Every structure is written in structure tokens, then in C-alpha cells.
């Protein structure tokens, strides 16, 4: 039972650590969107054609945050 309690504690700690990844992904998403906005304000006429690229970049940055979230969920509910 001691071991089981330690394992339970460990997986909750692990889930919490994995949740840090969500914050890191938030930084990434913010960097993508912020740089896009900075570029768009410099050259607004070219911004419209690049929204697809923006969303692709956002998707890639966000996917890693979702992976972190998934790891947390797996630790919480599946392990």
C-alpha cells in the first residue's frame, strides 16, 4: 500500500509537470501570433495571403501543448 500510494503521488506529480508543457506551448503560440502581427503591421497588404501559414504555424505550436496535456491525462487516468 505504501508503494501504491507513492505511485499515485508520483503520477499526480508527473501530470502536474506535464501540464507545464501547456504553458510552454502557450508561449510558442504567442510568439507565432505576435510575430505575425508585427509583420502584418509592417506590411498589411501581404498579411492577408499569409493567414494560412499563420494557422499552420499556430497548429504546430499548439500540437505540442496538446501532447503535454495528453501526457498529463494519460498519467491521471490511464496509467
Amino acid at each position, binding site marked *: 500500500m505504501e508503494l501504491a500510494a507513492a505511485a499515485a503521488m508520483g503520477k499526480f506529480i508527473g501530470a502536474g509537470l506535464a501540464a507545464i508543457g501547456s504553458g510552454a506551448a502557450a508561449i510558442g503560440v504567442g510568439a507565432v501570433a505576435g510575430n505575425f502581427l508585427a509583420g502584418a503591421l509592417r506590411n498589411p497588404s501581404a498579411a492577408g495571403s499569409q493567414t*494560412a501559414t499563420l*494557422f*499552420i504555424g*499556430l*497548429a*504546430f505550436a*499548439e*500540437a505540442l501543448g*496538446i*501532447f503535454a*496535456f*495528453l501526457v498529463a*491525462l494519460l498519467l*491521471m*487516468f490511464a496509467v
Partner: protein
Amino acid sequence: MAETAHSEGGLVFHPLDQFQIHPLFGDGPISWYTPTNATLWMALALLAITLVFVVGSSARALIPTRMQSVGEIMYSFIHNMVEDVAGHDGARYFPMIMTLFLFILFVNFLGLLPGSFTPTSHIAVTAVLGFGVFIFVTLLGLYKHGLGFLGLFWMKDAPLILRPIIAVIELISYFVRPVSHSIRLAGNIMAGHAVIKVFAAFAPIILISWIGVIVTPVSILAITAIYALEVLVAGIQAYVFTILTCVYLKDALHPGH
């Protein structure tokens, strides 16, 4: 989960219960053909799409009604996207991409109805979509270009020494594509719904403790805010899934660049 739930004195956290699949009729085991709630909501999405795209456009009006207008806007949106990203010869695969987009979009939006079920929050569903796109695109590339398709991994403009390393990295990233493609969709939808459910679990705290005077309004406001975000996410994830499909399709059609 259960320990935290019961120590709060009556508060129950079951953020993942909304993803349960159960048979529509009776309580038997789920075999491969049993109609379940997933079946129901996919069928409802199908019905909604039929309503907008088949019934709505049945008049073929030159001056569109509202329903037909919605269909036309989505049509030209996706059509332009396919042509812009995948090139002119990508337009052949427009019905397939439109099918993916509409399915994901309508399932996502219907899943936001309270008490509903969201099939796209399940890895099984999104993995079929993601790996389906991956296998289709890979076979298409091999069929169109033969072994030349492998030039996708062999960077001609990189230094010769780096090329094998880059090729390995490219190969890994190519095979990670379907995984991230499907998990991104399921993870986003699941995360949003679970967060809403977590805040919803905090809402009835006013029935238990005086602290609910503060917590309950805050959690209801948070549900509203997250719900608005989820409406956005539902649209954006459908868009992202579709545009990534277009990008992969472009790689298959024009592996050179």
C-alpha cells in the same frame, strides 16, 4: 480523481464521463455494429450537412437564400483554400477535403450543445481521419511520382554531408504527421470539453459551503468564457485539419518544392 472528489464533501469531478460511449438502445455490450451515441451524433451531423448543403441549395437560386448562401460561402472558402495551397491540380480532390472539413466542423459544433456527445474527441475517430489522409497522400505521391516522391526527404539544396541527417529528420517528421494530425484534433476538443466540465463541477459549490458565493459566479463566468473559446476552437480545428490535409496533398502532388 475520486479522492479529490470525495474529500470536497459531495463535489463530484467526472470531467471525462461525457466521453463515455454507450449503446443507444438497451444496455448490452458494444459490438462493431451497435448504434451508440457516437453513431447518433455523427448521424445528426450528417443530417445537418444534408439540410444546409442539399436541401438548402435545392432551389439553385441565382439570388441565394440564407441557407444556400452559407453553403456557397463554405464551398468557395474550401475551394479557394485547396487551389491556393495544393495547386490547381489539387482541385480534383476537393470533394474529399470538403467531406473532411464539413464532417469535422459540424461534429465539433454539434458537440458544443449541452448534453451532446462529440465523436471528434475520440482518438479512434480522428486517427482514422488522420491516418486515412496520411495513407491516401503517401500512396498518391508514390503513384504520381514513383520513387521520385522520396525526393521529398532528400534536400537538394542542403550540403551533401548534412543530407542523410536531414533525410532522417524529415522521415521522422513525415511519419509523425498523422499522429500529430489526429491527436491535435482530438486533444483540442477533449481538452476544451473537459475544462468546461471541471468548471461546471465547481459551480454547485454554493449548495455546500459559504465560499460558493465567490466561487460559483466565477466558475459560471469561466464556463461562458471557455465556451466562447471552444466555439472558436471548433471552427479553427476544422480549418487547421483541412489546411494541413491540403499541405500534405501539395507535398504529394509537387514533392519538388
